[in-house]
């Protein structure tokens, strides 16, 4: 599975990745510094003096919440790594946007045929065996494209070789069950990443409930049918007894 490693200590803030992304995805030029329906990645300045920068983009979870949330399967995790979006299926319920733990998907609010917009990890390029546009454009190797397990090993190697410069954390190794975007850097940069992401894959939580449905339907259904049968039968028997007891009384009265 392919992945992207971002090393904040190597990044010089040139924004070559942002420009490459814009032209690769044919997005309009703009100076927006936050993710939007026209920006799939941004370079956020964390500390001006230290020249610390952080890339924001879709994390391409190994087990993505958005893909599990989508009722029509418009979002899918591909074997190669990218989490991709099929506009022709999308109904626009926006559950993917609610579901994403990293708050990444953006919506074309002003369009009459709105699309969900996010980084697709250059799906065509990756399918051709090329690296993503951002990784190719990066002059310092701060953004590196490669096999996920190899990149995790390399990330730890970089951390171990300069323990003072890096926080001992590969963001994305375990978060939300693992992601295909891995981030390392000094503590100051790592603090800017969302710490409230549980380690396990989130879709397991809904699947746990969904997988109980057949059993629940069978048990409750059988229970209701049984209860109804007993009640009906008792009512019928009750009717018989009342008529039986009533008839002699009526006869006696007349």
């Amino acid at each position, binding site marked *: 599975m392919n992945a992207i490693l971002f090393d904040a200590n190597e990044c010089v803030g040139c924004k070559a990745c942002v420009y490459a992304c814009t032209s690769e995805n044919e997005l309009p030029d703009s100076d927006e510094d936050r993710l939007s329906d026209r920006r799939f990645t941004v370079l956020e300045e964390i500390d001006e003096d230290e020249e610390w920068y952080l890339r924001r983009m879709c994390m391409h979870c190994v087990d993505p919440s958005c893909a599990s949330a989508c*009722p029509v399967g418009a979002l899918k995790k591909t074997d190669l790594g990218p989490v991709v979006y099929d506009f022709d299926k999308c109904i626009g319920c926006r559950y993917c946007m609610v579901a994403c733990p990293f708050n990444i998907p953006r919506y074309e609010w002003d369009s009459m045929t709105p699309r969900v917009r996010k980084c697709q990890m250059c799906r065509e390029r990756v399918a051709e065996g090329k690296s993503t546009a951002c990784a190719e454009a990066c002059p310092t190797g701060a953004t590196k494209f490669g096999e996920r397990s190899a990149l995790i090993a390399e990330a730890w190697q970089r951390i171990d070789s300069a323990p003072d410069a890096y926080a001992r954390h590969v963001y994305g190794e375990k978060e939300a069950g693992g992601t295909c975007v891995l981030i390392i850097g000094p503590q100051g940069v790592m603090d800017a990443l969302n710490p409230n992401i549980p380690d396990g894959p989130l879709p397991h939580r809904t699947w746990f409930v969904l997988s109980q*449905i057949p059993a629940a339907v069978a048990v409750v259904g059988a229970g209701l049918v049984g209860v109804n049968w007993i009640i009906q039968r008792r009512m019928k028997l009750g009717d018989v007894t009342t008529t039986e007891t009533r008839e002699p009384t009526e006869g006696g009265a007349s």
Partner: protein
Amino acid sequence: MIAAKRLLDQPWRMIGWLCVVAGLYATYVRFTRGLGASTNLSDDFPWGLWVGFDVVCGVGLAAGGFTISAIVYIFRLEKYRPIARPAVLAAFVGYLMVVGGLLFDLGHPWRLWHPLVMWNHHSVMFEVSWCVTLYTIVLTLEVSSLVFERLRWLRANRRIHMIILPLTLAAVLLSMLHQSSLGSLFLLVPGRLHALWYSPLLPLHFFVSAMAVGCAMTIVESNLSARAFGRCVEADVLDGVARIAAALLGVYLVLRVGDLVVRGVITQLWPLNPAGLFFLAEILLGAAIPMVLFSMGRIRRNTKWLYHTGQLAVIGFVVGRLNVSVTGFEMTAGKTYIPAWTEFAVTAMLVTIGIKVFYLAAKHLPVFEEDHDASLRSRRWRAEMDQQAGSLPNASSVAPAGLLAPEEQVSNERFQPI
């Protein structure tokens, strides 16, 4: 002039018209300029009033339909039969409104059918859309019986009566699934929903509170119809419904508060903070106070108080559902979302249309007991029944004996109502 005076004399009528006019304008904005122009939704708040109220609350408030019909047709508590039809009709109208709300909220409303063809069985939303679709069909079949009866299409009516038990069973199972699944939707967002509302028990909370508010809605709706049609409130029946509501609210309170205690989240209530206040509002208005009031005989016997308690439970329920779908997200995001006026206008329009449709249906269809007896007593009806009974060998099992017997029995026996 006269029309204007009539409007001024009836403030509710005027408010209704205002809602519809404003709603129509908002509809125009929504379908010509898109969601951005017609809502305050944003990438931080992709779901707002339309999902939070029209769908999440709407489905819950319509829960009276399956709760009461289960009590009557499965548990055979005959006492509640008079309110089964109004409850099913209210649920049907409620689900039509939910579908209406969805058409506004979906980015591509014309693709509403996609989940039926493009499957992702890992998605809670997929399951909800299937269940809501199937349950709306079940409700349509149940309500069609009223139309058949009104039109005197006896054969069609009889067919519905024959499948009433399987229909009710389907209604209960489908409702159980999607009422709880509305809660499961939020199981996916542990990091984004405030801990006071995120719980592994969300599906159970949603299911139990929906049944409880279904009972409360039935009480409210019975009182409103009694007023609108100058009928008597079914005091004895509603007394029982209130008891059931009290029991369900009790179960809900134990589940909800117990869950907070077990998870150790209850400490977040103190010192008082906005999230805690919203939670207290939901728990006190929607569960604790109505539970106490519903369990007091004095309240249950007083029609007016019972009505107000029902209203309180409904309001508290709405606060609770909005807490899960909107407030709980605001609290963690540290950002606020206040619906645009157009969002309120569309919601108000849908509610107004819903009330009007219920009123018209109740007026023209045999929904209440009296209509029933009245239609039974009509000579033409009885003649037709006799004819049908004569032509069909098995008719006596379907048509009650009273219809074929002398006149005095007619008032005691009723045609088996749905």
